[in-house]
């Protein structure tokens, strides 16, 4: 056997790689192939849902002789992808709008009022939340409502029972009082105060429950400088100091899940994904975790909804096929809901009023039936505008809250700082 020198090894490897790689040069772009509907969708929190929707698309493809391909991308990367496609006027026929509202992309999305009217007629209409998210300034639907992610409370029943609150905290103040007792026992509660979704969602829920808001119903008048927002800020600071640990200042979206999964957390504000993960990994702990409505405050019970909808791009060459697919997908909502293990909260009134598979059948998940009644999205009580989205995307309010909670600013400075930032953003769009 002859010894292979390094030079020979490199030459042989390079030659072999070249031969194997050659076919890549002749692969035709997929977009130039047969008639197809290409969908840009998020990577669903529940892997089984992606499998279901891929299989669903394949079945529809076979039946209608139109190839449907779903490209799954993490939700945080979707806006960049849509922006690039709009700039180049090419790409996917259908794009999923994850939490960004429809107004922002409306110029690039076709009017789908006719399809939404048809779906509304079949399924008892869309909820106001869906209308708010999917209609644009012209009063028409430019995206087809899909579902929203509710934001309930997840609590450790065993721990809350020990302090005499077996059903968990029903109000924000009960959360503060009970949370302080549990923190003293080594089981803090967790609401993020950092740059991630859950933080900004929880803060909005707290602010709205105290009667505060960033903007008025007209969607233009900034209302952040108010007595109610001050009360919400004071409450948040007390909650942080009494019931949480400073780790929440450096959290990401997975951190509160980890707190609960570690057995160290007494309560978190999160969709049921955290519970579902623990269920698969630690049955004993999952049995102790219960789900409740998001807490209520002096102004009532309001929580934040991350909404999802499908838009059909104006540059799509297959708009009719795209519409037909979306109609079939919406008609099959119950199957989709089952595949998502109860995660996809409905926008259609028929489904929203229940009963629904999985959550109506499981006593632990039953509180989720009420989710459509008290969830709102950015810009509340006004419309879901581009300005509201920018305030949300730039973490303006959560930055203000974090600075106040860590004593870097006093109450008045915090309100002024937040108000200036919010006004600067809104002034760009008015």
């Amino acid at each position, binding site marked *: 056997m002859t010894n292979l020198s*390094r030079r020979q090894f490199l030459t042989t490897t390079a030659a072999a*790689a070249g031969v194997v*790689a050659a076919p*890549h*040069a002749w*692969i035709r*772009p*997929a*977009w*130039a192939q047969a008639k197809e509907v*290409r969908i*840009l969708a*998020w*990577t*669903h*929190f*529940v*892997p089984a849902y992606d499998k279901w929707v891929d299989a669903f698309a394949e079945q529809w493809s076979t039946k209608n002789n139109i190839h449907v*391909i779903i*490209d*799954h*991308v*993490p*939700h945080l*990367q979707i806006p*960049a*992808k849509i*922006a*690039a*496609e709009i*700039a*180049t*006027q*090419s*790409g*996917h026929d259908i794009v999923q709008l994850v939490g960004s509202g429809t107004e922002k992309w409306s110029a690039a999305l076709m009017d789908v009022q006719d399809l939404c009217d048809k779906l509304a007629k079949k399924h008892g209409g869309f909820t106001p939340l869906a209308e708010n998210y999917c209609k644009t300034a012209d009063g028409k639907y430019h995206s087809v409502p899909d579902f929203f992610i509710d934001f309930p409370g997840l609590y450790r029943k065993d721990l809350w029972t020990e302090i005499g609150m077996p059903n968990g905290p029903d109000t924000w103040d009960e959360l503060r009082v009970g949370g302080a007792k549990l923190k003293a026992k*080594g089981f803090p509660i967790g609401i993020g105060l950092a740059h991630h*979704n*859950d933080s900004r969602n929880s803060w909005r829920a707290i602010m709205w429950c105290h009667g505060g808001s960033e903007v008025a119903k007209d969607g233009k008048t900034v209302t952040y400088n108010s007595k109610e927002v001050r009360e919400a800020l004071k409450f948040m600071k007390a909650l942080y100091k009494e019931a949480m640990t400073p780790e929440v200042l450096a959290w990401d*979206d*997975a951190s*509160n*899940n*980890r707190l609960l*999964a*570690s*057995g*160290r957390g007494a309560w978190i504000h*999160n*969709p049921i*994904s*955290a519970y579902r*993960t*623990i269920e*698969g*990994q*630690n049955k004993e702990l999952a049995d102790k975790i219960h789900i409740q409505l998001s807490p209520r405050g002096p102004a009532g019970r309001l929580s934040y909804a991350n909404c999802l909808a499908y838009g059909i791009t104006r540059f799509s060459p297959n708009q009719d096929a795209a519409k037909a697919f979306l109609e079939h997908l919406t008609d099959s909502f119950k199957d989709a809901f089952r595949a998502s293990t109860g995660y996809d909260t409905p926008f259609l009134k028929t489904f929203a009023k229940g009963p629904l598979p999985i959550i109506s059948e499981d006593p632990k998940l039953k509180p989720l039936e009420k989710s459509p009644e008290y969830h709102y999205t950015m810009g509340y009580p006004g419309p879901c505008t581009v300005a509201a989205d920018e305030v949300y995307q730039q973490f303006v309010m959560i930055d203000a809250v974090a600075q106040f909670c860590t004593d870097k600013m006093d109450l008045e400075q915090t309100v002024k700082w937040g108000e200036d930032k919010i006004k600067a953003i809104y002034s760009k769009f008015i």
Partner: protein
Amino acid sequence: MVIERRWKKWVYFYIPLSLFVIGTLFPFYWMFVTAIRPDAELYRSWRAVTNTPFWTLAPTLDHFKDLLEKTTFPQWLWNTFFIACASTMISLFCGLLAGYALARLKFPMAGMLGTSIFVTYLVPPTLLFIPLADIIRNFALGNTPWALILTYPTFLIPFCTWLLMGYFKTIPKELEECARIDGATRFGAMTRIIFPIAVPGILSAGIFAFTLSWNEFIYALIFLSSPEKKTVPVGVVSELIRGDIYFWGQLMAGALLGSIPVALVYSFFVEYYVTGLTGSVKG
């Protein structure tokens, strides 16, 4: 005296070296331990009596199995390798010629041109991806490996040019001049005298270019859509991070397997690489 020397060696050499080695290798060790740790242990409380954060008593290959069976990871690995090799070769070729020209040829604004080339390397890809997407669409390269093979050189060529320009400047001009006196053309002197001497620099530039291509994320995310066309950084993030759920075991298995080719490239050319970085030919 001997005792003092030994003491000094420990303080100034062994202890700092140990800290450096631990600091450098710990992330790999952590990746490895997480990749072989069963899920039940991954999410166990740090305060649990049975918790063993730095090792596992029940190692498993399940995460590797899931990664290879439930995702198209081998395909991502191949895509990444092919794209990284092709874009590195293109960039090295262009960088070699440009670097040589800027280091050796005398023409107006040569110095400024060299600086400008480096400045283009500093333009963030987040600013460039939209105009580049337009070009990709015009050439109908979307969702093909060529979209990346042809866009990666936009940041690799400036980088290679700058690095090689510096390296060529360290090679004495006299060597080339001797060759010219002996009858070699400029091109002949360049390819027969200068390039062989510059091999450490060329390999350093190649290794860096390969690593930058291997790890690139934003262009790969924007220009490729199909799951089977993705590269490792995008594929792993797309499939194994689902909102607030991180599949840590598989993520770390993917990161570990994904880092092996880069580690191999480094180890294979380590002596050239070190020479390339520490300077080259003495005049």
